[in-house]
């Protein structure tokens, strides 16, 4: 039937065109580089404790001594609290260590895999044994 193919083709093309220019934020492999692990140590400046993803921001000194603000993307509040990290555990000004994967576009954004708090407690967001940054193995 004439209409059907036409309309469905438009839909398919529209769908691809709509999605293509967006650097697919929200699928791990498209946004983050699985081969670029990094460790950040810095002072916590902001916490965005919300669904579907939490974000926390660190002031990190780069090798030239300049302070740069980095964004760290974590799982949702549910996933984090199940792993033992509650909203109140992150206090602004604390020095936090984040192990994660860098964003592909080179921006100051990481997919946080392990977060280590000032009291030494650390929370791993990956699966033990998956070889991610901060993975202590099975």
């Amino acid at each position: 039937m004439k209409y059907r193919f036409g309309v469905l083709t438009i839909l398919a093309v529209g769908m691809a065109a709509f999605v293509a220019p967006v650097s697919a934020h929200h699928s791990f492999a498209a946004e983050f580089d699985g081969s670029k692990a990094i460790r950040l140590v810095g002072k916590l400046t902001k916490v965005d404790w919300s669904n579907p993803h939490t974000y926390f921001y660190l002031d990190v000194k780069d090798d030239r001594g300049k302070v740069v603000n980095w964004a760290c993307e974590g799982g949702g509040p549910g996933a984090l609290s199940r792993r033992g990290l509650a909203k109140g555990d992150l206090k602004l000004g604390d020095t936090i260590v984040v192990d994660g994967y860098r964003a592909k576009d080179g921006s100051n954004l990481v997919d946080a895999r392990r977060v280590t708090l000032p009291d030494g407690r650390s929370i791993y967001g990956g699966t033990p044994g998956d070889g991610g940054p901060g993975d202590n193995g099975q």
Partner: protein
Amino acid sequence: MSVSLFQFCQWLNDTTFSTALRESTLMFPIVESVHTLAITLVVGTVAMVDLRLLGFVLRKEPVSKVAGQILPLTWIGFAVMLISGLMLFAAEAAKCYHNPAFRLKLILLVLVGLNPLIFHFTIFKSVDRWDEVPRTPGRARLAAVLSLSLWSGIIVAGRAIAYFN
């Protein structure tokens, strides 16, 4: 004093309810999952009616009977979608305001509502004459194709919201 749409969205975003939902450990995932799975109740059922109009399924059943049997399920699904959708919107109202995918989804929702309205008040009025014929009128089939396309577009736009956050 006029309140801009954005100010309303920001206000809604900051209410105790919205904030609690946005920061929740369990509620947000549950509401989001209900919203996604209810796609079956709304789009899945409507698709069956559309497929009947296109002559693919339930061919021996009168069109009016197919619509009468299935659309109540669709309405139930729509109620679930609306409630869960409003909750999700409230939780992220400020972000949604700027989100092009969300805006597109709303436009498509209006269109997908207009389509059956027009269908109902035009070609469907004469359904007695084509209720059981082997090939439904062109306008009925057009409405079915538009319905399937618009609902698919709504699913796509809905999923794309996360990509523009």
